[in-house]
C-alpha cells in the first residue's frame, strides 16, 4: 500500500502549513527519520521527518504553497511497490483528502500532537528555523540593520526573502518608533522591575528616518506573525463574549518583601520581579477557581467546558521592533508547582530567548491563562483580548504610589490595577470577581506566595 503523507498539525493552533523546502524529490529513497521537508506553520519552521521507509512516488504540493492540515503533501511507495502504482493509487484529488481519510498509522490525530511528544509528529523537538531563503542583498541589508530574517516574510519566488521584504520590516519599525517611545512619566520602581523581566520592547527610541515634522504614507505588507495576530484576535474578539472586571491590589507589602528577598538573594543571582509574584498568585488561585483555568470545547455541536489539570501561565512578550515587532506568548508550564525563584528564572530565560532567537512552538503552546503586563509603560489600566483557547486574560498596569484612605486616615500606598477579560460562556462576572479577589489577597499577603 502506498503511504500518503499529509500536512501534520504541528501546533494546537495550526490550520495550514507551507512546505518551504522539499528535502527529497520524486524517486528518492527515504529511511525512517529522514527529513522530508521544512514546514512553516503559523509559529515556526519545523522539519518533517519520515516515519516510514520507502521511495518518494509523488510530491503533491509545490514549495511555498500553503495547504490545510490533513491534506496530502506526498506519497511514498513501500518497498517493492512501483512508483507508478503508488502514484496511481493515490491520485484522487489531493485537495479533497479530508482529515479522517488519513492513515491512522501514518499520521497523528489532530490535537494529539501537542499533548504527547511521543506521538508521530516530528521525532525531534521542535526548533526555530535553521534555513531561511533570502537573496544575498536581503541578507546583507538585514544584517546591516540588525534585522533577523526569521521575522521577515518572503514575497519573492518560492517565498524567498528579497530586499523589499526587509525594507518593509525596517520601514515598519522606523515608522512605529515615535508612538512607542514614551516621553512618559518615570515608571515606578515596581514597573521597572516588571519591565526588566518581561519587556522586550524596551522603548529605546531610534533616530527617526523621516525628516522631522513630516509623516510618510506607505503600505506595509503583513509579516506572517502580524497576519496571525490579526486573524486570531478578530476570531477571539468577535467570537468570544468578552467582558472585563477590574481590581486594584495594594502591593506595598509585596514591594517591601521583594526588595528584602532581592537583597538577600542578590549573591545567588536572584532578582524577583512583581510579575513573578503575579504569575505565582494567578497560578495558585486556579486551585480555588478551576473554571478560570479551562477551555471552551465546541465538541462537534455538543459544546462542553474542559477544566484543565495543568496550570500553564502564558506571558505576553512584545518583540523588539528591530526584529519586526509583534508579540508572542511564552508559556510557564505547571506554574502552580513552581516556586518564585523558578518562575523568575524561567520567565527571564523565555523573555530573553524570545527577544534574541525566537521561541520554539513548545515554549509557546498550551497556555491555559495569559498575563499581559504593560506596567513598564506607566499605564494605569487597560483591557486585553482573550488569547484562545484560554478563557481569561489578565491585563496588568503599573504599580504606582497613590493616596490611600484607610480607616479615615490618609496614607501613601502602591496600587496596581488588574483588569481581567473573561469568556462569559465559561466564566461569569462573579466568578471573575472572586478569582481576582483571591489573586488580590495573595498579592496583598505576599508571604503566602513563598510557601
Amino acid at each position: 500500500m502506498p503511504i500518503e503523507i499529509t500536512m501534520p498539525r504541528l501546533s494546537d493552533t495550526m490550520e495550514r502549513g507551507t512546505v518551504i523546502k522539499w528535502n527529497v524529490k520524486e524517486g528518492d529513497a527515504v529511511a525512517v527519520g529522514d527529513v522530508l521537508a521544512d514546514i512553516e506553520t503559523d509559529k515556526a519552521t519545523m522539519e518533517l521527518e519520515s516515519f516510514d521507509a520507502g521511495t518518494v512516488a509523488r510530491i503533491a504540493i509545490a514549495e511555498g504553497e500553503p495547504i490545510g492540515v490533513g491534506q496530502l503533501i506526498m506519497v511514498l511507495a513501500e518497498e517493492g511497490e512501483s512508483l507508478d502504482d503508488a502514484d496511481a493509487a493515490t491520485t484522487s484529488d489531493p485537495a479533497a483528502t479530508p482529515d479522517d481519510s488519513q492513515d491512522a498509522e501514518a499520521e497523528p490525530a489532530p490535537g494529539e500532537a501537542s499533548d504527547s511528544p511521543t506521538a508521530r509528529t516530528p521525532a525531534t523537538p521542535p526548533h526555530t528555523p535553521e534555513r531561511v531563503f533570502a537573496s544575498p542583498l536581503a541578507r546583507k541589508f538585514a544584517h546591516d540593520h540588525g534585522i533577523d530574517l526569521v521575522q521577515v516574510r518572503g514575497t519573492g519566488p518560492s517565498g524567498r526573502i528579497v530586499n523589499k521584504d526587509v525594507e518593509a520590516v525596517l520601514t515598519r519599525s522606523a515608522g512605529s518608533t515615535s508612538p512607542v517611545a514614551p516621553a512618559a512619566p518615570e515608571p515606578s520602581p515596581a514597573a521597572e522591575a516588571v519591565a526588566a523581566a518581561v519587556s522586550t520592547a524596551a522603548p529605546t527610541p531610534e533616530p527617526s528616518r523621516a525628516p522631522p515634522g513630516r509623516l510618510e504614507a506607505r503600505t506595509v505588507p503583513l509579516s506572517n506573525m502580524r497576519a496571525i495576530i490579526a486573524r486570531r484576535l478578530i476570531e477571539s474578539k468577535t467570537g468570544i463574549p468578552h467582558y472585563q472586571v477590574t481590581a486594584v491590589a495594594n502591593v506595598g507589602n509585596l514591594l517591601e518583601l521583594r526588595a528584602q528577598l532581592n537583597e538577600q538573594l542578590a549573591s545567588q543571582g536572584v532578582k524577583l520581579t512583581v510579575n513573578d509574584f503575579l504569575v505565582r498568585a494567578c497560578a495558585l488561585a486556579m486551585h480555588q477557581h478551576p473554571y478560570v483555568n479551562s477551555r471552551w470545547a465546541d465538541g462537534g455541536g455538543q459544546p462542553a467546558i474542559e477544566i484543565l489539570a495543568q496550570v500553564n501561565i502564558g506571558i505576553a512578550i512584545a518583540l523588539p521592533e528591530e526584529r519586526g515587532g509583534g508579540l508572542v506568548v511564552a508559556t510557564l508550564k505547571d506554574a502552580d508547582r513552581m516556586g518564585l525563584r523558578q518562575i523568575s528564572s524561567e520567565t527571564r530565560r523565555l523573555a530573553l530567548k524570545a527577544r534574541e532567537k525566537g521561541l520554539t512552538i513548545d515554549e509557546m503552546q498550551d497556555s491555559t491563562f495569559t498575563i499581559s503586563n504593560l506596567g513598564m509603560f506607566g499605564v494605569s489600566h487597560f483591557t486585553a483580548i482573550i488569547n484562545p483557547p484560554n478563557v481569561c486574560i489578565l491585563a496588568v498596569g503599573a504599580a504606582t504610589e497613590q493616596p490611600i484612605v484607610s480607616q479615615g486616615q490618609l496614607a501613601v500606598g502602591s496600587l496596581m490595577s488588574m483588569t481581567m477579560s473573561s469568556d462569559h460562556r465559561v466564566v461569569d462576572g462573579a466568578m471573575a470577581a472572586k478569582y481576582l479577589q483571591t489573586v488580590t489577597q495573595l498579592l496583598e499577603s505576599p508571604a503566602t506566595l513563598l510557601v
Partner: protein
Amino acid sequence: MTTTTLDIPAPDFTAPLPPRDGDRVIQFRQALREAMSEEMRRDHRVFLLGEEVAHYHGAYKISEGMLEEFGDKRIIDTPISESGFAGLGIGAAMYGLRPIVEFMSWSFSLVAADQILNNAPKMLYMSGGQWGCPIVFRGNDGAGGQLGPTHSWCVEGLFANVPGLKMVIPSNPYDAKGLLKAAIRDPDPVFFLENERLLADRAHVPEQEYYIPFGTAARLREGDACTLVSFGRPVHFCLEACDELAADGIDCDLLDMRTIRPLDIDSIIQSLAKTNRIVVVDQSWPFSSIASEVVTQVCEKGFDHLDHPPVRVNTEDVPTPYAANLEAAYLPNPGRIVSAVKETLR
C-alpha cells in the same frame, strides 16, 4: 633582443572621445575600412591579408578601395588556407610588422586554431618576453542568416578562454572604428569579432581621429530596474527590449561591453549595486559562454548586491538551425530579453 613590439607608441587614451551624434553617417564596414586605412597611413608596418581582401575588395566589401591606395604588398590576397596565412601573420608580427588578418568568417578560423590559440597568445609568455605578437585577427562572427550549423560560429565562448589574447566585439560603427584603431596599436594579439548582420548598419562616425580604450563598457540606456549586459549584435536586441520595457515603466541600465577581454566588470558591479538584478545577453551557446563568465564574476564580486539570481539569455543549446524561422527563434531576441528582465523583477 627584442622586437619592435616594445617600441609601439600607445595611443592617447586620455583624450576625450568626440560626440556620438553628428551627420557624418557611414556604414559599419566603412568605419572598419577607415580604421585600417588610417592606421596603414600612419604606420607603414601595418598590412592586411586574407581571402579576397584585395582584388575582390573583400568578401563583404570592407576593404573596398584599399588595394588601389596601398598596393598589393600591403593588401594581400591569400589562398584558402587559414592555417597558412594566420601563421604567416603571426610570424610577421613576431618580426616587427603589424598584420591584420581577415577571416571571411570566424567559422573558418577553426582550421587555424593551432596558430591563433596555441602560438599567437602564448608567444610573449613562451619567449620570456622576447617576442610579442601584435596582430589583429578580424572577421564575421555569429549567425549571419541561414548559413547553417558550421558557418554560423560564435567563437567568443571558445576563444576567450585563452589567456594572452584580447577580444573585441563592437556593436556599432562608432565603436567599431575607435576599437579597431586601438586593436591595431595594441601590443597583443587582438581577436576582433564583427557581425555580417551589422555591416550595413549606418551611424555617425566623427571625422576626428579617436581611439576607444579596451575594458570600458558603454552605457546605452540608463535605469535602475535591472542591469542588462551585452555585446555585439544582441546589443540591438537589448535596445529594442529596453524600449518595450520602458513603455511599461521599467528602465534598465544597458551596458555594451565592447571588449570581452579585458572585461569591464567594475562597470557591471557598479550598475548592479544600483539595480540589484542582472540579465546577460549573449549570442553564443549557454554552456561555458561569456554570459557564464560574467555571471560568475558577478557572483564573486557582487554577491551582496544580488536580489535575484543572475539570468542569462543565450542562443539555444543546439547547432545553429538553417531554417530562417528556427534561426530567429534560436537567437536571443527582444521578447526573450523582456521576459528575462521581468523574471528578475518578480
